[in-house]
């Protein structure tokens, strides 16, 4: 709403509270500022068009004969609004009654149950009995996209999905077909919905009409835990909520951040993390005994690694880190590398096709399909295309790089070869010690996105077996090497980042908050990485 010029302020009263807002503010948004959420269906703050068609947000305005839709009604001086007067509540109750006329009430098998705005308001308006004495209209189920199902009976024709595609994604693939009580959502004849951002139509659906096929019948909302996190799918760093059930990631939902992804995220990010549920994890510390890795416990493993570090003598060592490593993991790796005299820290970045959401310029699926490329560079790591050539007898430390492209003998002559990882690729079997660490979803930490915004993610899952966060493991190893105290608090770990790396100076875990913070000097460096292509 900032267009450069200062807007005049207007003062109005909403439910007895006076509030001053910039001219042009809609009453529904002004009401939120005084803590009043006017019930709504068709209105969505991220979709610019406001058809005022669901009639749910009607409010009473003193001096006006009819109820007014608060989503389009502009706040005016001396306006007195009652969002919950008898007339407004009665109208709202009747909207719910009408919506339920043909609604199947199949909440027990509906994926939206528990997170459904129709269910919520039906309870709020306390309509326990239906006056409907006729058979309900049955419309059935359809597929609007490869991976999205449409349950027409549940649909309340709020048209959020149609308008997201048309007005936000600027791809008018969806339409309202038919009219009146026969209306339903469909694709244009001969056209398919195939857009890299189409998953958002499921998020904007206020009921259970649009559902991802890979989520359907998978989890009840009350069985899931939600964790605020960051999507690691590319360097954009979309703010997300990770929904988990029984220690598995079930789905990702975008989390509002006006400075990054607004209300949206791309389908690549939405889907790829769910895949991380699969595969075999490194779960126990292992040390090499007579050329074969043997499981052990953390105490013995860390003692062993400390000994290896003390005994190391080779020069020109190498460190290969995953570009999805958190800032804290890499920061705590640095003193270890110092002890090993390793100065070359490299990371590789898998890339892919880009995709942009036209109306939200910052939100792009960027070519660099990793979470923390910029953060690693700030801490002194270098981006490379190929795995480095290893000097014989030199130290090698790998932080969760899966060593794709390495042959089976990779690192066999390194001394020592320390592997910290979430999985155990073939080449890691040459390591002198394997320390199992947590994925980003299993710990707290920070990533720094393409433009230098450092953002927090939080632990959504319990790490498997004995795996522990990398920074925690490293701090204990460093303590054994006489480098500081062990850390068990992510705030303290981030403080080390802030205390070591100039761009982070002055930031704290708390001050980053849930919306992230730009590191100093961000932008100049980011410009070269901005497009990610």
């Amino acid at each position, binding site marked *: 709403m900032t267009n450069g010029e200062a807007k005049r302020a207007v003062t109005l009263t909403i439910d007895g509270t006076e509030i001053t807002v910039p001219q042009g503010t809609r009453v529904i948004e002004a009401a939120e500022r005084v803590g009043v959420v006017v019930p709504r269906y068709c209105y969505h703050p991220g979709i610019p068009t406001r058809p005022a068609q*669901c009639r749910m947000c009607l409010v009473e305005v003193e001096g006006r004969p*009819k109820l007014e839709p608060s989503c389009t009604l502009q706040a005016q001086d001396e306006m007195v609004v009652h969002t919950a007067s008898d007339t407004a509540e009665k109208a709202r109750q*009747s909207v719910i009654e*009408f919506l339920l*006329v043909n609604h199947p009430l199949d909440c027990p098998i509906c994926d939206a149950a528990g997170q459904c705005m129709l269910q919520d308001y039906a309870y709020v308006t306390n309509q326990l009995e239906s006056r409907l004495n*006729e058979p309900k209209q049955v419309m059935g189920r359809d597929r609007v996209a490869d991976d999205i199902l449409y349950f027409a009976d549940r649909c309340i*024709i709020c048209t959020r999905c149609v308008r997201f595609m048309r007005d936000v994604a600027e791809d008018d693939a969806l339409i309202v077909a038919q009219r009146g009580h026969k209306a339903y959502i469909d694709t244009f004849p001969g056209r398919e919905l195939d857009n890299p951002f189409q998953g958002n139509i499921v998020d904007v659906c206020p009921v259970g009409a649009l559902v991802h096929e890979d989520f359907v019948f998978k989890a009840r909302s009350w069985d899931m835990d939600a964790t605020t996190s960051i999507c690691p799918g590319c360097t954009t760093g979309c703010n997300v909520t990770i929904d988990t059930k029984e220690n598995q990631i079930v789905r990702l939902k975008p989390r509002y951040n006006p400075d990054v992804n607004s209300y949206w995220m791309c389908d690549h990010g939405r889907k790829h993390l769910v895949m991380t549920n699969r595969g075999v994890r490194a779960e126990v510390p292992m040390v090499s005994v007579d050329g074969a890795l043997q499981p052990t416990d953390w105490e013995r493993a860390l003692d062993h690694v400390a000994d290896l570090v003390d005994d190391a003598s080779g020069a020109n060592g190498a460190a290969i880190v995953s570009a999805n490593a958190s800032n804290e993991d890499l920061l705590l790796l640095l003193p270890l590398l110092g002890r090993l005299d390793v100065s070359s820290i490299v990371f590789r970045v898998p890339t892919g096709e880009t995709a942009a959401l036209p109306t939200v310029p910052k939100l792009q699926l960027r070519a660099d399909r990793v979470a923390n490329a910029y953060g690693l560079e700030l801490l002194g790591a270098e981006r490379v295309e190929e795995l480095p050539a290893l000097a014989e007898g030199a130290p090698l430390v790998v932080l969760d790089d899966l060593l794709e492209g390495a042959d089976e003998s990779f690192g066999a002559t390194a001394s020592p070869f320390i592997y910290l990882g979430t999985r155990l690729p073939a080449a890691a079997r040459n390591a002198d010690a394997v320390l199992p660490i947590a994925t980003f979803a299993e710990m707290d930490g920070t990533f720094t996105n393409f433009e230098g915004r450092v953002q927090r993610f939080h632990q959504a899952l319990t790490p498997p077996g004995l795996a522990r966060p990398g920074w925690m493991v490293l701090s204990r190893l460093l303590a054994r090497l006489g480098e500081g105290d062990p850390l068990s608090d992510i705030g303290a770990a981030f403080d080390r980042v802030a205390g070591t790396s100039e761009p982070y100076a002055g930031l704290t875990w708390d001050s980053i908050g849930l919306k992230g913070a730009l590191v100093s000097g961000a932008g100049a460096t980011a410009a070269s990485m901005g497009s990610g292509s």
Partner: protein
Amino acid sequence: MSFPHRHDLETTTLLSRHQGDETARSLEGWRGLGGYEALRKAIGMSPDEITEVVKASGLRGRGGAGFPTGLKWSFMPKDDGKPHYLCCNADESEPGAFKDREIIRWTPHLLIEGCLIGARAIGSAHAYIYVRGEFFEDTRYLTAAVTEAYEGGYIGDDIMGTGWSCDLTVHTGAGAYIAGEETGLMNSLMGNRAEPWAKPPFPAQAGAFGMPTTVNNVETLSTVPGIVTEGADWYTQWGTEKSPGTKLWCCSGHLVRPGNYEFELGIPLEDIIFEACGGTPSGKPVKAVIPGGSSTAFLTGDELDCSTTYEGMQEAGSSLGTASPIVMDEDTDIVAAMRRIAQFYAHESCGQCVQCREGTSWVVRILQRIEAGDGELKDIDTLYELCEQMTGRTICVLADSVVFPLRSSLDKFRGEYEARMSPSLVAVG
């Protein structure tokens, strides 16, 4: 019937004078009847002068709402540098109404002239005539007339050598009732679904293509040339102070002589029904009349001595609407008639507002059940409550259009509904 019946009432045929006369269809014939002189005169006037004379004539919109035409024109911004548009609403779809199509069919040049004068009054250089999709034959006459008028220099650049230019486009709809609602019409004209939009923005602020727009009915615009030629006083000699002039009447239903008529506003409704149209063919008493098209409230056979003006019909508890009385004799099944009316609106609801989308079809289902003899007394209460819930809460008035006839039929013919109830249920109810 294709042209107005002659009748023995005092008749003032301003609009319908040439209906039935094929010579009026061609440009040459129309010129011979004095056509396009009003346009010439209007081009010699300033836009404000035109608006003033129409204002002074008291002409009210003939599309149903009766809003003063001159006042509507005066809402258009002046010197705003934007293109303005005039849209002529020829999407005549109200059940019972068939007046606009007769104007288009017999006197297309009268409409063209009216559109151009209206366009001049609101500072528009492009007028659209939005014609209902089913009007195939009428559209043919209209497009032929527009082509002729373009070729004759009456539309387009430098009209009649006056230096004033205005284009006119005929656009046909796809047959949706809701495209007759002015914002629905503009949406349809722009290539969108014919869905009404929530005002504001009002058409005069941002209408067709986002520009200031005025939407006028065919009959309204066709009345304008006469007013421009003869003056406001000439027009106000007919009708009443609040409802001046004449009006086309589309009379249908149980009548000996159904069809189009033109009367001075204010004559009693019963004169139209019994004298002009000859009463019911069966000779039986009139049970009910829906006077202004199917979206207006029922009048009973005892309520027909009302004055046919905007204010008179309102006093009688209904409205003039499009002046399209549907007459029902004693044998008419009111429940079935109401069910059929409700079906029409349920079918034509655009589906945006829930009250209309779900309400209209729910009403139909209840009425069908009552009609089939499975009703319960409490259904009447439910219908009343649905009327309440569907009134005044939607973007446009389509939902209200069901409520007017429904509520009045419940009020006035409750006995008919009750008589249809399932006997067992009535006994316990």
